[in-house]
């Protein structure tokens, strides 16, 4: 696919989503990047910031099917993946697909479900398939999990294990909108916008699910310079040697950086990756993959600060400095 055409499509998608979701341009761009890079997104933010609306809007604009799971402590794995149900008519067990069989899956408050249920998503997220009773069933393509978790409440929650966190391509932190943006949201509602009725908003599908898959495959044509591979590995290696980091990023993080950078480059209309693409993605890709030493946590050091330090030391390839 032509890089310029790729970029124009992405710009159109962002513009269409922005008609409904006001003031979340960065979030939309990052989620779209993750979808194109065949990754999953963990969104951390307080309720009411439009996370569900984002998924529904994106699904509509991308021509994909979306489903939503509200994770609760009593949610069972079969409630996610689906299960075999006896069909009295045929006197056989039929497989009833769970909500995971969707192209865009919103997992709301994923940290409220117990580890057993959370792990049910592991295979789906990594292998893009579900295995029940020995039978493996592929998930539709594209497949993207957009999970949310509330950073405020901690009682009655089950923090996501590191293994599962690593499955998310990026973790995006969403804050409250500015006053101007919030006023624009109110203005939209005054003018009759209803989040429950997206049809009335006149949203149109700019691409189809097949187009999205084609765009995902087109990313393989994005050139990555040898120096950039060094840059990525250098950054990830530095997370393992940083004094404030107990556990650094995994090789999966390197792959995530590479895929994300390719998607970013394509969205910016280029057929090659630049160091800026990598650098821009590092916070979102790395912040949930590193574990700080307790002393650093007590001192108030955050993962983002460690990443900033690392980026300030990593040598950019072919710099003029």
């Amino acid at each position, binding site marked *: 696919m032509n890089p310029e055409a790729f970029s124009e499509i992405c710009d159109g998608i962002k513009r269409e989503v922005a008609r409904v979701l006001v003031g979340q341009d960065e979030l939309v761009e990052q989620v779209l990047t993750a979808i194109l890079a065949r990754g999953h997104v963990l969104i951390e933010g307080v309720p009411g910031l439009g996370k569900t609306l984002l998924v529904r809007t994106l699904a509509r604009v991308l021509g994909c099917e979306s489903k939503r799971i509200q994770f609760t402590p009593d949610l069972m794995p079969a409630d996610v993946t689906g299960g075999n149900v006896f069909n009295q008519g045929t006197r056989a067990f039929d497989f009833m697909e769970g909500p995971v069989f969707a192209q865009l899956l919103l997992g709301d408050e994923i940290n409220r479900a117990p580890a057993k249920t959370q792990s049910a998503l592991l295979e789906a997220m990594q292998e893009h398939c579900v295995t029940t009773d020995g039978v493996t069933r592929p998930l539709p393509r594209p497949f993207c999990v957009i999970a949310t978790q509330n950073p405020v409440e901690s009682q009655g929650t089950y923090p996501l294990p590191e293994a599962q966190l690593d499955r998310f391509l990026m973790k995006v932190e969403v804050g409250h909108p500015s006053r101007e943006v919030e006023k624009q949201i109110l203005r939209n509602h005054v003018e009759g916008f209803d989040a429950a009725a997206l049809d009335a908003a006149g949203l149109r599908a700019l691409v189809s699910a097949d187009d999205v898959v084609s765009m995902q495959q087109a990313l393989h044509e994005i*050139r990555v*310079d040898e120096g950039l591979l060094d840059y990525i590995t250098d950054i990830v290696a530095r997370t393992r040697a940083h004094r404030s980091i107990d556990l650094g990023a995994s090789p999966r993080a390197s792959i995530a950086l590479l895929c994300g950078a390719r998607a970013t480059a394509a969205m910016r209309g280029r057929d090659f990756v630049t160091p800026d693409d990598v650098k821009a993605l590092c916070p979102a890709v790395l912040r949930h993959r590193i574990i700080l030493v307790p002393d650093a*946590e007590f001192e108030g050091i955050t993962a983002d600060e460690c990443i900033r330090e690392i980026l300030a030391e990593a040598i950019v390839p072919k710099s*003029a400095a």
Partner: protein
Amino acid sequence: MKQCSTSVLLVIFVWLAGMGAAAAAPLGARQVLANEAFGFCHDERYPLTVEEAQWCPLLPPRDPPCPTFQAACGAPRAAKGSGGPQWRRSAEEGEEHERTRGPDDFHRDRESEEPNASLPPEDAGVGVFAHVLVWVIVAGMLAAVLVQLRGPSARRPREPSDEPEPSESEPGDFPAALAPSETDVERLLARAVTRAERGELDAAVADGHAALVRGLSERGHIRLHASRTNGDHVRDLRDAPTLYEPTRQAMRIVERVQFGHAAITRADVDHLIARVREVLGTLAGVLLLLWTTLACTADEPHRYPWSHSPSGTAGVIELLHGHGLELEYRRTTLDHPNGIQGITPIVLDGSHMSDEEWSALMAHVRRGGNAVLATREPLPLELGVGRVTREGHALVRWGGASEGGRPAVPGDAGLSSAGPEGIPVYVDARGTPYALRRSLGQGTVLVLADDRLLRNGALAVPDNDVALVALLREFGPRLELIDGGVRSFGLSAEGGASDPFHAISRAHLTPVILQLLLFVLLLYLWRGVHFGRPRDPGPPSRRRFVEHVDALAQHYHRAGARGHALRLYAGWALERIAERFGGRRRGLQSLASRIAARTGRDETEIMRTLAEAHHARDARDDHDAHGSEDDLRVLRELGQLIDTTRANPPRTQGPTG
């Protein structure tokens, strides 16, 4: 070397010859007025005042000492009130005479529309320096702009034609050998152009890239570091819209070469270099702005120093200096403790002396001193000199003596003497004195009908210079002018400017200082905060201990480290409680019973709290640092125990988590 020696000898010879000539002929009005600072003698459109124009009928038609004075008489007059010092305009406003004159620090605006009709005065002091500085800066900037316009390529000869023709370069890695080691922006840009002409497109792009980022860094727009990407540099320029877009375009080309696989063309390289020049060319814009500003100040109307006008005294002072007389302005009043012993005061028009000063002056004369009274103000009665009208401008020496020639002074002011003590010196055709001398006590007073003979305009009339020297020679060698301008500006007692701004204005430094301030402002706008020298940050203020504790508790709280906090607090609290009850070796049960006996609380509850604290203290380091809600409860209960077991229990509670 031989030529140089010859030149030096020639200069010495000419100088000695000049000295000899000067020694042979004393300084005359012609030599004094040859100075171009006397604009009325060198500028045909010099604006004379009405008072100054009274000299016009007396000017000689042939071989005048002041060549253009006659022509200036036909030029438009200076606007009434625009010439001369403010003190004179305000003091004489409404009077019939528009006599305007003053000390050296006043200028007269020229009304002529021709900016280059005459050269600037040579002795304008700092003003001349400012003009020269402006033109030097203008020339330098013009050269810089021309260099910018021509581009570095024009300065370098083309390479031999056996070089390969420029063509599309093959995609590939950015060659490390081409990484620019040069740091000078201009040379980098020049090398980029040269390499582009050779067809080394990748290397040209590398040089252009280096020139761009180094140029931006040198101006403080970006921070150059090996960890910063091109995107970082572009984002640094968001506040500079004129730089942002061309830099972004240039960076796209650079990145296409560095990381892309598309072929780079000569057109791309030319586009890159054009963008780089566009970005770096803003320097020329700043210089042009500076140039324009300075050029505007340089185009001010031509100004002459007031002291060199026909109403000034600079020429007279120079003439008398040439004849061995020391003549200067008096900076203090005549009744000042410094006194006037050994000095001959010359009282000019507008001096407005007080009665005390007149008394001091007369006393000075009676003691054997001398004085020259060249003022139309009322004179002391004891002099016995009155005012009359004389006829004609020509004067002759009284008694027919030929010394001093035949001077001429405009106006009709004459003198009369009430007694035989007054001896005329110069008289008109009817014998009415213009100047007379009178002995008073042991001293002598020379009285002139006005001070016109002591003004520069008088030097334009033949024989006036000779008469002036002849009049004042016997009153030397130290003479002091009592001038209203000096006195009215508050210098009579202090001898200096009243404030710094006045001092700057008197020294003609205002344009230079304004230009320097403008230059600093432009530098600041150009370089931003990087223009100043970075300073060390100030030392942080010390915090109170309780603030440290509070901050640490906040960190624990944010980190959810309840278990960790309990472990530390439990160890400290158990130690304190055991110390207070002397039960370190008695065990928890004994401690609990003692605490219950003192506080009256339930012993079982106390024991449970102590046991939980003991358990928390001895927990392993790898125990869950986050803890649970129970940890908070234990923390609170331990805090209460600490509070209640004190000798003087406070009202406040212990830790609340």
